[in-house]
């Protein structure tokens, strides 16, 4: 017996992972990363219910803070990259190989 939400959390994480791998523009990749964070948060909350510990809720609280920082810095990097290269596609960015 298990809740349907476990499957939902796994679904969200794996869908975000597939999107991160297969998408080509950077904004969509960041959107899919947020989807993955949503799935992980839901899973941690479900574990907190099954163990009865309140600490996991605080873990999710800190996770939300870290993901907010991650998105802010990622988006500012995208803006800096757009100024330099005029593109947001991963194909057009070959700074290391060039």
């Amino acid at each position, binding site marked *: 017996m*298990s809740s349907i939400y476990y*499957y939902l959390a796994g679904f969200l994480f794996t869908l975000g992972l597939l999107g991160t791998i*297969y998408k080509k523009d950077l*904004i969509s990749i*960041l*959107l899919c990363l947020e*989807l993955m964070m949503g799935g992980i948060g839901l899973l941690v909350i479900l574990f907190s219910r099954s163990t009865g510990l*309140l600490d996991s809720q605080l873990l999710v609280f800190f996770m939300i803070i870290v993901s907010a920082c991650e998105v802010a810095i990622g988006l500012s990097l995208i803006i800096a990259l757009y100024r330099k290269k005029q593109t947001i596609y991963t194909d057009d960015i070959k700074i290391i190989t060039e």
Partner: protein
Amino acid sequence: MTYDILLTILTVVFALMVVFSKKTVVAAFALLMTLLTIAMIYFQLGTIFLAAIQVLVNAGAIAILFVFVMMLINLEQFQNNRERSKTKLVVTAFTILIILGVFSLIVNNNIEMLSAVNLTDNSMKTLFEKLFTTYYLPFEMATVLLLSALVACIVITGSEKGIKHDQENLNE
């Protein structure tokens, strides 16, 4: 029972919209809706504090930040959707697998429906007592992290060269 399945279906539909929608703005709004439905699940599971935080921070701030960045970047020239050819195939196959799995669970009546935990004022009090005693150091570190992220964003995007570049683009 019904709420569980309804919320799950809503979340799955919006999450699929994030990956499949051709316009990035639509994807951002679908992400906003996904985060809101996750907040509703938190609320249903009884973690009211996290539901509020999710609505305020994730849905209210992050999703809107995405829309602002799309305004800054000229998205008109990016309307042709360049994706790898296998994207839709792989994601569709995976989605069908997951949906079939969950559907078989529902049909076999093998799913336990979670009810909300009885949250009293006491548990909320315990939560905040833990936050400000046991987890005091991580809390302070989180504030420092937010401050450093703020400074980093200003340094990365607000350089004089970049602003000059934007002004030249505007003049053109």
